[in-house]
């Protein structure tokens, strides 16, 4: 994870440039998930477990094919199954979305993280957690508009999908992409993926899905995990995929203007005191005050 990649364009809680002599000259990468081609086989979940050596606790059935019931520190990707009765066609549609980190161009987790180098963004767009620097505060969770990072109960570190940054670094595709039997998950440069998506969307439109479209939300600067949705006008249908994800305004203030303003307020208060002392000096009790006090005491019955 902390191999020297020399292509870090953003690093959490760091105000100076990170090593970035190496770039992503083949372009930024993206994973494209074509929801319309997904059969819900969960091979991607298994591939993720295998490659990353993750074995989540075996839970119990909660009445849905979504299993485990949620992302966790040991389940970095999850097929979410939603049943949708389409009022226009009368069809029951099984909308299956592979959930996990979206690898935002403007990552809220990285913005919120207080620990230098616990979250980095590579030139290729992948957002990675470096757990050895993670302090376990959970600020990344407040920053994320997609509810992705999870704090481990074992080690109190935050975990999420790495987009197989280790595989991508040596020219391999992510494990979930490698395994997908229907080609619903593809991987390549972001430009190529957009082009591929455009072809898929055209095909879907010709098949009657007039609202088919690409999910690459601008509110977070676009993402490096994109979806082709048959109902791109209603992303909420897909297990509450947010229509307009943005970093929360509260986090924006807290991690933006509050930082310089807060320190400035503290420094200004201290400076006011210092300058006041230089100008007026101490307020001292002199002999006359003690004398006056004594006189008053003597006159007090």
């Amino acid at each position, binding site marked *: 994870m902390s191999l020297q990649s020399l292509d870090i364009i953003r690093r959490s809680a760091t105000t100076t440039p990170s090593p970035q002599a190496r770039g992503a000259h083949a372009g930024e990468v993206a994973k494209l998930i074509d929801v319309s081609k997904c059969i819900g086989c969960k091979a991607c979940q298994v591939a993720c477990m295998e490659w990353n050596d993750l074995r989540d606790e075996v839970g119990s059935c909660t009445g849905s094919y979504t299993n485990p019931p949620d992302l966790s520190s040991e389940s970095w990707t999850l097929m979410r199954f939603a049943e949708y009765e389409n009022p226009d066609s009368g069809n029951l549609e099984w909308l299956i979305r592979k959930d996990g980190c979206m690898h935002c161009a403007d990552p809220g987790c990285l913005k919120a993280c207080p620990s230098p180098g616990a979250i980095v963004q590579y030139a290729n767009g992948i957002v990675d957690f470096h757990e050895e620097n993670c302090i*376990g505060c959970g600020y990344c969770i407040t920053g994320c508009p997609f509810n992705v990072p999870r704090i481990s109960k074992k080690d109190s570190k935050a975990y999420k999908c790495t987009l197989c940054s280790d595989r991508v670094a040596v020219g391999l595709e992510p494990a979930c992409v490698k395994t997908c039997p229907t080609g619903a998950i593809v991987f390549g440069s972001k430009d190529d993926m957009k082009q591929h998506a455009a072809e898929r969307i055209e095909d879907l439109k010709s098949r009657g899905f007039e609202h088919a479209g690409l999910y690459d939300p601008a509110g977070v600067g676009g993402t490096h995990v994109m979806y082709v949705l048959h109902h791109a006008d209603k992303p909420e249908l897909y297990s509450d995929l947010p229509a307009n994800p943005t970093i929360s305004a*509260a986090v924006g203030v807290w991690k933006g203007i509050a930082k310089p303003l807060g320190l400035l307020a503290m420094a200004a*208060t201290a400076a006011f005191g210092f300058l006041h002392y230089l100008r007026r000096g101490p307020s001292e009790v002199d002999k006359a005050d003690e004398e006056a*006090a004594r006189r008053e005491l003597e006159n007090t019955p």
Partner: protein
Amino acid sequence: MTEAGKSGEIVRYSYATRVNHWIVAICFILLALSGLALFHPALFWLTQLFGGGPWTRILHPFVGIVWAIAFVLLAAKVWRDNFLNSTDRQWLGHIREVLDNRDDGLPVGKYNAGQKLLFWLIVLCLLGLVATGLCMWRAYFALPVDIVRIASMLHAAFATVLICAIVVHIYAAIWVKGSVRAMTRGTVSDGWAWKHHRLWFRDVTRGQQK
């Protein structure tokens, strides 16, 4: 005041109150340093004082609990003396003279209006910091993320106000000579009480033969 001081001195704070105050003060310093470490990347190095980032994250809320309890105990002793009254308006009207060290003869009880306002500001910040801090304490509380987001922002805001307020509090102790001993030895000089808190001076010395 029941404890009698030596001649020329007036007891301002009992031993218990002084200990209580310094528990609050030490906790506050620890909280401010550990909180600032996680507030601004330029101050992250302060985590080293607490054994690194994870330890800073672990310790901060526990120190906060000790601080809050100790402050409540301290406040229970002094809150009655901090109600604002008509003489406080007069003091505030003469704030310029006070700042210029020309505040002779203003009627002031045990606390002046500045101290009283500061007290209530600290109470407000304490309530805000405890409420928002608990929301952020992931080890023990799991609240909806929207609440945690707003709590995090407000926690920083309350902390900023409180740190500024305590800077004023500490500066006032440096500026007004003879004040610090009230919280260390527990006593002030007659002249100090007469000059800065004349109504209180009369209150505690009435009926005493010196």
